[in-house]
């Protein structure tokens, strides 16, 4: 997995962003957050904290009140941010892996040679070279996840957002996803409950609870604050309990 | 109900294909127009088609070892409207023929005609008619859905029987009562499933249900306000319609074997060459039906009313349980 996808990282600025679902439930409440180009951020928090909603807004699939810019531009659907959904079956809607990865570039009306090059490049980045003719249905969970990431990478996003990328994966599959996310040269936003895996990728942790940013700081210092994590339904993970940074 | 190749005659196949193609063209046009209001129409039609296919695999018991399965035409009609519903059912039937070899390729038009065009169109007409007659609110709508889904199965079965009979493959007097008898019971399963499905959807996503369902027009708890006479008129009308449609043949079911002997005697007198004739309605079937139609009509109405009553009681049952679940 050496061939990295070329990318110019972009910064993300979110100011006073609120979002209500049609039934008036509030998902986000005046969220303000800015992410520097090339940064890797983990969004954590209990179920229903608004993490997925935030990613959908960043991807331009939902519209909230407030301002969101990626590289200074409002997120349109979508050239800047590539969102990898939690369930890869939602994202692999074509018959073969190749068609799925080519879907984005073809919609950008790129010439056939460029589409083929991007398919090869993205599949290589996701460690799926040789999977072109396989049908999505016959892939394992980990392979599906990587194929979904490849399909997003082929659109050449400047920000890669992943919603619960390690959920339902075995250790090998999860490690493969970690590697892909680490090698991506752009800005990365990951939502996860698995702080141990997130710590391998992200150097900053933002905790959301009931639509509000409750904490924001460097991953490693925040992992030591057991009281904070516990208050928001998170666990530091086993290795923190036995290592030197054990909270007193 | 999937007719294989070779069972229906050329003219029937051609007629079925023409009707199916026309309905498909119209519903494709309507679906395309719908994509403007509802951009997720294409994936929605697709997952609904996949849903119908998957739901058809959940067999339900009838009696003893026999089992039936969900058809889905009324359900998709209630959820997506007659046009998109017809499109979805057409795709399901086509997939079954092309990929799973369920139903013949030459009979594809005929099968689409029965299960998509008649299944969806018929259930839509019954549903809208009953919706006007029954009181507004959730239970009125669910009653309409239940009866329409029962009728959709029966209509599709009747069409299937008629096509086999017109083609000269099976005598009408035998195949129609057999098909209707079996499907009158399978239809109850269909009605139960469709009603439970719709009440689950109303509980979880009332925004999906079409506006004409008028489920919010009356609070579900306000029982005293319901105009009872409307319900009675609706039920009676439906019973009459079904009786006219079903009873003359359905009531001849018990003595079906006698009929076979009788008609065999008839036809033995003069028959053409033993070839696959593109026969119109074989002449031995019609007289028997006409002679008995009047006398059996009354029995038919009673029988239909009984089924109607049973269906209504079951609907109430489903409704109440679903509400309890929703709470």
């Amino acid at each position, binding site marked *: 997995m050496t061939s990295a996808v070329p990318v110019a990282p972009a910064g993300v600025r979110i100011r006073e962003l609120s979002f209500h679902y049609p039934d008036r439930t509030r998902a986000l409440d005046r969220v303000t957050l800015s992410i520097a180009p090339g940064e890797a951020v983990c969004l954590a928090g209990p179920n229903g904290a608004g993490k997925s909603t935030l990613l959908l807004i960043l*991807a331009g699939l939902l519209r909230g009140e407030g301002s969101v810019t990626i590289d200074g531009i409002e997120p349109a659907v*979508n050239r800047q941010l590539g969102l990898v959904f939690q369930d890869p*079956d*939602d994202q692999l*809607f*074509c018959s073969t892996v190749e*068609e799925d990865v*080519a*879907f*984005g570039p*073809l919609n*950008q009306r790129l010439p056939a040679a460029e589409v083929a090059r991007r398919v090869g490049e993205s599949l290589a980045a996701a460690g799926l070279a040789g999977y072109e003719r396989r*049908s*999505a249905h016959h892939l394992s969970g980990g392979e599906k996840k990587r194929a979904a990431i490849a399909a*997003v990478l082929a659109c050449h996003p400047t920000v890669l957002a992943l919603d619960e990328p390690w959920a339902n994966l075995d250790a090998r599959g999860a490690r493969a996803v970690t590697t892909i996310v680490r090698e991506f040269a752009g800005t990365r936003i990951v939502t996860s409950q698995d702080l141990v895996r997130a710590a391998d990728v992200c150097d900053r942790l933002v905790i959301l609870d009931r639509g509000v940013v409750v904490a924001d700081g460097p991953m490693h210092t925040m992992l030591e604050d057991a009281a904070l994590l516990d208050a928001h339904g998170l666990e530091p993970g086993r290795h923190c309990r036995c290592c030197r940074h054990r909270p007193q | 109900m999937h007719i*294989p*190749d*070779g*069972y229906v005659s050329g003219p029937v196949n051609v007629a079925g294909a023409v009707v199916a193609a026309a309905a498909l063209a119209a519903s494709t046009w309507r679906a395309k127009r719908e*994509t403007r209001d509802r*951009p997720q129409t*294409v*994936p929605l039609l*697709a*997952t*609904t088609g*996949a*849903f119908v*296919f*998957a739901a058809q*695999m*959940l067999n*339900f*018991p009838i009696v003893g070892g026999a089992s039936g399965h*969900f058809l889905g035409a009324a359900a998709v009609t209630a959820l997506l409207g007659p046009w998109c519903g017809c*499109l979805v059912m057409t*795709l399901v039937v086509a*997939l079954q023929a092309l*990929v799973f*070899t369920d139903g*013949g*390729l030459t009979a594809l038009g005929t099968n689409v005609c029965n299960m998509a065009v008649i299944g969806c169109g018929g259930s839509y007409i019954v549903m809208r008619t009953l919706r006007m007659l029954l009181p507004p609110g959730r239970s009125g709508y669910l009653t309409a859905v239940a009866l329409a889904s029962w009728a959709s199965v029966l209509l599709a079965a009747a069409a299937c029987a008629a096509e*086999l009979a017109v083609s000269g*493959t*099976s005598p009408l007097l035998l195949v129609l009562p057999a098909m209707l008898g079996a499907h009158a*019971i399978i239809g109850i399963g269909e009605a*139960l499933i469709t009603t*439970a*499905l*719709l009440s689950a959807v109303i509980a*979880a*996503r009332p925004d999906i249900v079409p506006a004409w369902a008028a489920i919010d027009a009356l609070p579900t708890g306000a029982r005293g306000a319901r105009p009872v006479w409307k319900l009675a008129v609706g039920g009676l009308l439906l019973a009459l319609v079904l009786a006219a449609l079903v009873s003359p043949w359905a009531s001849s079911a018990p003595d079906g074997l006698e009929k*076979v002997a009788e*008609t*065999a005697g008839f036809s033995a007198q003069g028959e*053409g060459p*033993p070839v*696959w004739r593109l026969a119109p309605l074989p002449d031995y079937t019609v007289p028997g039906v006409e002679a008995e139609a009047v006398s059996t009509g009354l029995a038919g109405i009673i029988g239909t009313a009984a089924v109607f009553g049973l269906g209504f009681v*079951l609907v109430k049952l489903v409704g109440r349980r679903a509400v309890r*679940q929703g709470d």
Partner: protein
Amino acid sequence: MDRFLPTHLGRLDSRVQRLDPRTRLILVLGFVIVVVSTPPTRLAAFVAYAGLLSWATAGAGVPVTSVLWRSAAVLPFSVLAASWLPFMHGAPAVELWGGAVRLSVSGLWLFAGVVMKSLLGAGAAVLLALTTPLPQLAAALRKLGAPVILVDTLTLTYRYLFVLVEEAGRLRRAAAARGYRPRWLGQALLIGRLVGQLFLRSYERAERVHGAMVQRGYRGFMPTAHELAWGVSDVVALAVVLPTLAAVRTWLR
């Protein structure tokens, strides 16, 4: 699940599979139309059709037995819909057991006809399904002028078929695990609730899939990378098989 994964049984590089999917579709349709329109008394023609079908099956590298087994699935329908034909389709009669049972010759022929036709038709459809995965078939339909929205929906339906069939299986198992053993019709109610869950999930999946499509620039149709192209072998296959079928239908008795 065997029934749901029929493709790839044949060799993907076989002579039949190198044909354009449009050619395969046209050949199969031509075959079934000719078979269905043949009078049942022309036994020789039916033998020729069966021969042609086995030849194509061999050419596709598909085991003949698997085609046979799958097409035999139509036989129950014959018993249901046509088994009375020999008993009531007029004279001349064949008497069995000293006249206890009278069978008509024309009825017997008609019965034989529907059985042969349905088996051959199903055989051709099975061969098509075994050699042509649905995406190829969809590409053929698109190229033959079917509306884009229809072909796209068909392809997507096929894609999510497997996902939803598995979901339905999981729901059913969940019910069985809690002691659901349906015995009478009223218990279809529970199936109804499972079906309701299944629909809600499929509806929400449609919303997510649409989001995923839009996110990658969906503009109302699925773009295609590979175009189909007729080859010499397609022309040869069409030019040989279709006239052969016509000749068999016309002259062989």
